[in-house]
Structures are given as C-alpha cells and as structure tokens.
C-alpha cells in the first residue's frame, strides 16, 4: 500500500517528469500562456496517459518484442485522436486555442516514456497510479508556469482580472515577454533550479569537472 502510494506521489515533485526527467517540455512551453489552456492540456494529457498505461500494462505479457514500440504508439495515438475529437465536439473554443498541441500528445515523450519505463513491466493498478502521478506532476508544472505567465503577461487568472492594467485605469503594466515562448523556458529553468537547490540529490553528477587555474598549472 505504501509503495502504491509512492507511485502516485513520487512524480509530483521528487521525480517530476518535467523538472527532473525534462520530458514533455514542448507542450509545457506552448500551451502555458494562460491557465485555462494549461489546465485543459494537463487534463487531456493525464487522461491519455492513464488510459494508455492501463491498456499497455494489461497486454504487457503478450506484447510481441519485435513490434513493441509500434503497438504502444498505436494505442497512444488512438487515444489522442479520441481526445482531440472530444475536445473539438465539447470544448470547441479551447480546442482552437490548443490547436495542434492536443494532437502532439502522441509525440509527447512523457506518454511513451511512462509506457516504456513503467507500464510494460508492471501490473495494471501500479501503472495507473504511476500514470496518474506523472500526469499530475506534469499538471503542477504546467499550472505553475501558466499562472505566472498569465498573471504577469496579461494581469488575469483564468480570465479574471487580478492586477488592474494601466490601460483599464489600474497600475499594472503587462510584461509582454511572458507571452513569448522564451519566458516559459526561463520559468521552467527557474523551477528546476529551485527544486534541485531544495533537493540536492536530484542534481546529476557532472560528466566532467572544470579545473581551476591552479590545478591546470600543476598538471
């Protein structure tokens, strides 16, 4: 039970797919200009991730080795198509704002990454928990980035005005850089830095060491 719980909670911060594994960055940059798009994308990805992990885990004993990856991608792609159609049917405006990024869940390394690394070696229930945990970990980062970008970029959260803009008679001058993709890079980088400062065990061992001047003189 305790271990099952760990499958769910570990990916939230400790083994977060974005900040530790640096997976799923593409969509984390693209859809986080507002909280509502980040929320929809997170939900879509989490649903696809949970369902695909459950299905792949269910057939894991009979997965032919030669076509393993193709089978996994086929399952993920079908789920993504269904999700895309679902959003177009019931959340049309949102699907237009997310444009191609729902379809690109297929190529989101996070989904295939969890299928390869976890679901194909573990029973269904732990796989579902792991997928849910990773989906939520992804969602936490997306929502954090989305909140920062929307708040400082346009002064609103979920469309409600938080910081009154100068042009509407308030005091806040929006930071337009927040609406551009590089700002998401900076915010994700900042999050990685903060998390690794608080949890030094996450920092990778350096592949090489930069020598100081004295050391180079000696050698």
């Amino acid at each position, binding site marked *: 039970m305790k271990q099952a719980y760990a499958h769910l909670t570990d990916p939230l911060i400790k083994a977060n797919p974005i900040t530790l594994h640096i997976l799923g960055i593409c969509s984390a940059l693209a859809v986080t200009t507002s909280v509502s798009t980040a929320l929809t994308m997170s939900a879509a990805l989490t649903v696809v991730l949970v369902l695909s992990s459950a299905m792949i885990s269910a057939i894991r004993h*009979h*997965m*032919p*080795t*030669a*076509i393993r990856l*193709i*089978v996994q991608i*086929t*399952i993920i*792609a*079908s*789920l993504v*198509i*269904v999700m895309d*159609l*679902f959003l*177009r*049917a*019931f959340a*049309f405006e949102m699907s237009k704002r997310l*444009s*191609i990024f729902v379809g690109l869940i297929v190529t989101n390394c996070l989904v295939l990454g969890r299928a390869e690394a976890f679901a194909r070696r573990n029973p269904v229930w732990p796989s579902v928990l792991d997928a849910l945990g990773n989906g939520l970990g992804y969602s936490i980062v997306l929502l954090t980035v989305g909140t920062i970008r929307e708040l400082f970029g346009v002064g609103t959260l979920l469309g409600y005005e938080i910081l009154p803009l100068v042009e509407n008679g308030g005091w806040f001058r929006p930071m337009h850089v927040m609406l551009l993709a590089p700002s998401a890079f900076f915010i994700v980088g900042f999050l990685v830095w903060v998390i690794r400062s608080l949890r030094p065990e996450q920092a990778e061992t350096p592949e090489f060491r930069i020598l100081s001047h004295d050391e180079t003189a000696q050698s």
Partner: protein
Amino acid sequence: MADFNPIHLWKRFLALPNEDLGKTLVFAFLVTFVASVIVSVAAVTLTPFYQQNLDRERQARMEEMVASLSVMSDILSELKIDDFDVRIVDLSSGTFAKDIDPTSYNQREAARDPKQSLSLPRDSDTAGIRQRANFAPVYILRRDQALELIVFPVRGVGYQSMLYAFLALEADANTIAGLSFYEQGETPGVGARITEPDWQAHWPGKTLADENGDIRISVVRGRGQGRFEVDGISGATRTGNGVSNMLHFWLGDFGFGPFLKRIQAGEIRL
C-alpha cells in the same frame, strides 16, 4: 484430431512465445483492429457536434465581417444578418439558379457529389480544390433598395490546409470590402495569422481587376504597393500564395467570373 474450440485456440495463441512471427502478426492485427474501432466510433459519434460548432463559427464570422465593414456600421442597428438575401448562382453560366432552395443547399456536400460538381482540369485548378460544386450561394446586401455588398464563399489550399473565407465586394463588383477566413489549419502564429483582424484590415479598398478585366489582386512578399497588392505575412509566403491563387480561381472562369462579368455588363441586376 484438430481442436477448434475457440477458447483453447485463444489459450494456445497466448501461450506462444512473444518472438513468434504468427503471434506478432495476429497481435498487430488485433491491436490495429481494436484501435480503429475505437477511433471510428468516436469519429462517428462526435463529428456531428464538431460540425455544429463549425457552423456556429461560420455564422459568427459572417456576422463579425458584416460588423467590421465600415460602410455597414451605421445601418447595422436596423439590419440583422437574416436580412441577407441569399441567391444560388449557376457557376458555369453565371446566372441565378431558380429551382434550388438557398436555405437547404449545401455547397460542401455538393462538391463531394460527382453528380453535382465538376472535376477540375489540373491546370485550371489553381485553388487546389479538385472538385467544384456546380452551384454556389452568394449573399446580397442592400441598403435603401440600393446594392451595398455582394459576399462570395471561397476556398483554396494554403500551405498545409484548406482555407475557407468570405469575400465581400462593393456594388461595382470590383472593389474589395473585406476578406474573412472562418476555417483554416495553417501554422499557428505564422500562416494562421490570416484570421487576425490586423491582417484582414489590409483588404478593404483593394481592387480585383484592372481596366482590361484581368484579375490582378495578389498577396505579395513584404509590403504591398498600389491597389492590387496586399502585404504578405512574413514566414507565410506559401499561405499568401494560396490566398492569391484561391482568389484568382474563384474570380476566374471556373469560379464566379461569368457571374461577375454579367453584373459588370449590366445583364444581371441585383
């Protein structure tokens, strides 16, 4: 004695090693079959909802364009979108088709039906649409009995998707009053900027054809000079070319060309 009990066969199949070629093939077939059933069921059940959304979007774009046309703003208050007079044009002859009900005619479905459409010769198909419906609706808007605007539905291939737009002409049938895209799948932030009001604002006032009747309007790279050129979007040259080709097609002989000529010659009074 062969055993044809399906449960036993299934168990034997599952017991095969995962490297077995037969198992691989059967497994691949089963996975693709199940996946295609799921996708097909979802597509069939959800597409009607999507179509409704698209229709609503088209209606909204139409209203948006009417609202954005400056000539319209003062009469908009008393004029509702339903006051549009919709007529069906026979594209090959350029005359009105009297026996088709405009409210039930669907140009997109007609374009898919070989009986109701024309398969375009490749060298004339500059818009890249392949099949063109024989009939097309035009929307006619009057103000105090006088013709104000004629609106044409147009479509053509851009960089990576089919672009659908309304082209609004002023009463001389040669001056553009507006071009509004209501459906496209171009690259977000690049080609998809054709839907932005900033870019669409370049169109009003431009002229379609010169004195000899040649269609001259085009989207150019960089800044447009004169009355026939519209600024291109940087990074979206092929979308711009697609828009130019689309207009040339729909204003040409296979599009509304014959109809426009009749209007200009005074043979059709709107």
